[in-house]
């Protein structure tokens, strides 16, 4: 019995030894380890008394966490999530206003009128496919093409409940049909036909990419930066098309958490990751398209310039999405998921 006690006291000593006495800045972000570690180290180089601690999770999960921690906020900065999710957080009073120095350099749709969040990156949604399994000629060109019966059981997508990207695509489709027919019925029918073609809803991006790469599915709907990253980092045979009729372009944002423990430090980090240079680095190293319009185009990689020229943006009523998306997604989950093949 003596030995376990000794082990335990050693463990306790270890546990208590972690406090370095630095100013700890906590960042919640879905942007992934590579990008976050890059900014962590760079920011710490500017001030040796700061210890940046990031917590990597999906953007819907960040919102969920902020809600749970509202009485005792743990995070200082929320770095990254589609604007729709930031708008929900703003509505629920989870964010602290901050007006960045470059506030004038983003279009109106990439900022909150009360300065509660600002856009950092633009994320276009695309149709992607395994180029070993599907030729460029037969690949779908537009949203409606993925409903073709020839794709039956060949589509694999993220589970839309957890994925900000899929929520944005589903929301855009329902909103488009709502504008066209005046009812959500047509949008739900569209998703029901997609469900009939969908082989599987994967619960995280990695499994989706693995299954796409290994031809368990041929076609997916996802966002352009992640697909570009996949291509560059893993050499998987993936290609994508920007849907010809237009695609929703997500604005990814940044915000300061209400009740942040280190508001001044949070503001400095906020500015630090959104300078022109920082955005350029993000574009080159992490394939992110900057939301700021004053980043010189010739300093950006070719694929971004190309994408910006050829891409048609699908206009989306964000207020409508902020009000209705949760309801639509709940309806989808209860009445459409796995129902397409039965009808």
């Amino acid at each position: 019995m003596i030995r376990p006690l000794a082990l335990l006291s050693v463990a306790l000593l270890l546990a208590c030894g972690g406090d370095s006495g630095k100013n700890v800045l906590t960042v919640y972000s879905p942007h992934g380890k590579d990008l976050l570690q890059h900014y962590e180290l760079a920011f710490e180089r500017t001030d040796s008394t700061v210890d940046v601690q990031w917590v990597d999770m999906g953007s819907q999960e960040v919102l969920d966490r902020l809600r749970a921690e509202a009485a005792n906020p743990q995070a200082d900065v929320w770095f990254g999530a589609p604007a729709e999710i930031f708008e929900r957080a703003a509505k629920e009073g989870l964010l602290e206003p901050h007006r960045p120095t470059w506030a004038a350099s983003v279009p109106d749709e990439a900022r909150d009128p009360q300065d509660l969040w600002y856009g950092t990156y633009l994320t276009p949604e695309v149709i992607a496919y395994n180029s070993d399994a599907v030729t460029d000629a037969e690949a779908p060109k537009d949203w409606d093409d993925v409903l073709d019966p020839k794709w039956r059981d060949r589509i694999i997508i993220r589970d839309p409940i957890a994925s900000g990207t899929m929520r944005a695509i589903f929301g855009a489709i329902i909103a488009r049909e709502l504008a066209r027919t005046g009812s959500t019925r047509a949008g739900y029918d569209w998703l029901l036909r997609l469900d009939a073609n969908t082989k599987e809803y994967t619960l995280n991006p990695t499994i989706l990419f693995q299954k796409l790469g290994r031809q368990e599915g041929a076609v997916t709907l996802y966002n352009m930066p992640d697909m570009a990253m996949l291509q560059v980092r893993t050499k998987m045979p993936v290609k994508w098309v920007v849907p010809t009729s237009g695609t929703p372009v997500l604005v990814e944002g940044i915000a300061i958490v209400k009740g942040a423990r280190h508001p001044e430090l949070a503001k400095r980090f906020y500015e630090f990751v959104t300078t022109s240079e920082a955005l350029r680095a993000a574009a080159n190293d992490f394939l992110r398209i900057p939301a700021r319009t004053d980043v010189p185009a010739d300093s950006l990689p070719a694929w971004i310039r190309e994408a910006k020229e050829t891409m048609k943006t699908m206009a989306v009523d964000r207020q409508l999405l902020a009000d209705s998306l949760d309801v639509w997604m709940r309806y989808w989950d209860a009445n459409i998921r796995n129902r397409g093949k039965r009808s």
Partner: protein
Amino acid sequence: MHTPNKTPRKTLRFPVPVIDPIAGSRGPSAIRSLQSRTLLLAAPVIAILAWTVVYPNISVIVGSLADGARAWKEFFASPADREAVVSTLIVSVGSVIAATLIGVPLAFLLARFEFRGRRTLSAIATLPAALPPLVGVVAFMFLYGESGVVTRIVQHALGLERAPWSLTGLWAIVFVHAYTMYVYVFLFVSAGLERIDTTLDEAAEGLGASRAVRLRRVTLPLLTPSIGGAMLLVFMSALGSFSAPYVFGGGIRVLSTQIVASKLNGNLGLAYVETTVLALAAIVGLVVLRRFERRRSYAMSGKGRQTRVVVTSPLARALLPALAIATVAVLLLPHAMVVLVSFARDGAWTTQVLPPEYTLDNFRRMATDPALWVPIRNSVTMALIATAANVVVCFVAAYLIVLRRFPGRRLLELLVAIPWAIPATAIAIGLASTFNRNDPLTLRVLLVGTFWILPLAYFIRGIPLVATAVEGSLKQMDPSLEDAAHGLGGSWLMAVRRVILPAARPGLIAGALLAAVTAVGEFVASIVLYTHANRPIAVEILAQLRSLAFGTAAAYSVLLIGLVLTITLLARWTEGRMARSGSPVGA
């Protein structure tokens, strides 16, 4: 009058050395002091369990009613939730059947027969428990998934156009559960068999009982507490299991994933309702099984004596080692797969059967990552703290439940079993909603966002593991042994040290081992509650998965498996040392 054991005990058909409890052998004052000591012990244990286990769940139930009955109405009207309830029950019952069918025969085989390959097989039979849930599920996907290694080998061998099966749906979840959860059955039944005196079986044989009769009349009745306890654990784990449905769950809903979906959808009320329903279903299952378990109770006095039958029939001599080798291979495949992927170059493996390119990069990247040792240190520290607390609290709880009679015993019994029934996600949500502020009036302490929230979560999850294992051991001790110690003039403390602790030891070590192993690889509660300062190794693996570094994630998993094996070996070594320096009664 105080009677040490109210449960009517059946008498076996064969002569068994059951010592009848001698009521009234102690003076009234001794009984009073024992009774007050019992209450003195029970009060703090019940208080701790009520505060950490029950209180957060009450917050959840209160939360489900925050909006009147709206969330409940929504739950009963939703076809998705109805589907989830049915699937959850199918998965749980299927997992119990599958795990029992694998675990019981394997335990018998290893405990009762001597054959070539037995040592190897018994050494690795518990390995599936060394595979952290998330890692195990992913390993299964790479093995038996549609593009998995085994699947593709079968496909090529049969010359099929498409994969012969796909690892989706309810049976995929049951398949994974059978692999990971049979270990509970195996461990419990093995521990039970260890305490059974094989001379009893020989005596029955001498009296002319056939093998089948001996199994039915002697061995199985003695094992009922162990088998029942293990089935209970499997049922609870399957009910609350998250990782397998999470990964294979594209096509199916079960309640645990439905809770997360509702919460993510911003419908916290519905999530609370689903949590409550799941917890209630589990508690009903718990009560039913407990009752069944109580109906049969036999006691053995002294430690079991073991002899193994050397297999002599030539057919069995040839078949058993082959069977052992095949079992070993199946058990080791997922681990091998994780190791293989840890050496595979990310993204290079597409339509081939096996990864075509191998590299040391994954381990190199891991070794050069400055943050590498932090999650490992965190996990080990938190697992140690939680397990130490489990050992103390659960030993006392199990002692009270099995050997003492007092008001509130049933309550205590329920309290220690509840945490397994309640899914880790729900435990986490309950903790997050309860310990999110300092408020002495409502007994709230701010733990969310601090280091201590995860050790607390691990402690709660470990309670049923350690308590059930210790109970199993103590049930096989004749309660009159403690009375005998008192009757011979030993102090209460001495009786604990010389009689009860030795009797509890196999269960204590098996339970602590399971709790530590579970804590060190814990994923589901961790992902909800961790902060940067205490992030455990499973969260680090998820971060790697998120950043597409599957190979690095596998490398971390290899490290985690190594860690779990180290804990196991450490526990065995401790057990060996303790057994050698054992006390006279236990020997």
